[in-house]
Structure formats: structure tokens, C-alpha cells
């Protein structure tokens, strides 16, 4: 199992993220679970494009000419920026919900309040 260790780490992070969303009752902790799930998907993208004994794909003072694949790194960059946008909007929603209902517990937000 040790030849696949980065993929095992991706699976563990995914399970932790989904478990946090399903089992917790606080709104802020659910948002942390979404952020952990985003990090797991980014790690999966990077791990997919690795070559054995390859260096970073940059030609400035490069020691050898066997390089890892550059396309998954570009996709991961876009995904990180979208994660930042998601986190900013989710946290501002949490502030407005707390100001309106008075609590951040998910079980008490269900009822319609006048």
C-alpha cells in the first residue's frame, strides 16, 4: 500500500471533509468542512501529474530535462482562486444569518421567524 501513499492521503482528506459536513451542527464548522474538501480535490489534481525523478517545469537554471506535467498545476491554480471566492461569500452569509436569527445552530434556523 505504500506505493500509493499520496492517493491514500487524498481519500482520507475527502472522508474527513464529508464527515464534517454531515455530522456537525454549527454553521462555521460546516464551512470548514467545505474548505477541507476543496483542499483534497486540489491535492488530487497535483498528484495526478507526477513523473518519477522529474523536476519543476521551469527552464531557469534547470538541472535536467525530465519535467513533471504542467497542465494539472494550472488547473489547480484556478481551483484555489475559486475556493477563496467561495469562502469569502460563505463567511459573509454566516455573519448576516447570525445578525438576523441570533444563533448559528442549524437546528434552530429551520423555523421561519418574523
Amino acid at each position: 500500500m505504500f506505493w500509493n501513499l499520496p492517493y491514500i492521503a487524498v481519500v482520507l482528506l475527502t472522508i474527513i471533509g464529508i464527515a464534517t459536513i454531515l455530522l456537525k451542527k454549527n454553521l462555521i464548522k460546516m464551512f470548514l468542512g467545505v474548505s477541507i474538501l476543496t483542499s483534497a480535490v486540489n491535492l488530487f489534481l497535483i498528484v495526478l501529474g507526477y513523473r518519477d525523478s522529474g523536476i519543476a517545469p521551469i527552464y531557469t537554471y534547470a538541472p535536467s530535462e525530465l519535467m513533471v506535467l504542467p497542465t494539472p498545476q494550472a488547473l489547480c491554480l484556478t481551483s484555489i482562486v475559486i475556493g477563496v471566492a467561495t469562502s469569502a461569500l460563505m463567511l459573509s452569509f454566516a455573519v448576516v444569518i447570525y445578525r438576523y436569527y441570533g444563533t448559528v445552530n442549524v437546528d434552530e434556523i429551520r423555523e421561519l421567524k418574523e
Partner: protein
Amino acid sequence: MRMSKIVRFCADMLYPAVVIFGLYVIMHGHLTPGGGFQGGAVVATAAALVIVAYSYEEIQGMLSKFLFQVQESGGLLMFGGVALIALGLGTTYFFNFLANSGLLFGMSVPFGPNPGDLNTGGVLPLMNIAVGVEVWGGLAIVILYMLSGITKEGV
């Protein structure tokens, strides 16, 4: 109730260093790891450092929301404008019309490892600057608006 003298002095000393490092990461995006998005996040950290050290009322004279809005909109317009100029010159959208020519950033690079030269890259350094300025303005606006929307008596 302010932060102590040591915290404010260290924030004053560190602010120019962080801004210069962020601008270095943005400008050398086509030679070393980095580029527009990474450098923009580094420079936005400098604004967050100053806001944490001082309180919000003291910052309003130094960092204004209007300038950051202009900065963010200008960055996105410059990014789209550079891509549209290539359409006006006869080639396709997003074409690199400055690479391997003799104009602003156009020097040819032979194949193989070499110490990098700043004069290369074509359209890429202009796009790096545009995206870096946009990310700097955007993240600073998010921090400033979230801080100003929190009242004093228990949110």
C-alpha cells in the same frame, strides 16, 4: 484600547518589505515560480497586517475604499483590453503578438536551460501585472468591508 508600541512599530517596519516582495513575485512571473495570482495574494497580506495592528478608525485616512475599487476594475479592464488588442491587429483573440518580435517585451530565447532575462515573454508580463493589481484590490476590499460591517455592541 490599542495594540502595544512594539506591535505598531514592527508593522510599520514590515509594511514596505512585504509590498516590495509581492511586487517582485508579480514582475518575475515568467522566469521563476509565481505570477499574477500568487503575487497579488502576498501584497494583500500587507494591507491585512496594517489593519490588524491599528484599529479601523485610524486606517481610514491611509487606505481608502474608492482607490481599491478603481484599482480592481482597472486591472480587469487591462486584462481584457490586452486580449482585445490582438483581435484588432488581424490575428485571433488572446494571441501573443509581442513574442519573438523587437518591441516591448520581445526577445527570442533558445531551447534549453539558461539564466533568465527580464526582456522576454511577450504579452505575459503585462497580463501578470493586470491580474496582480486586480487580486490586490479585490482582497483588500473584502477585508475592509468585512471590518466595517461589524458594530461595537456584540455584532
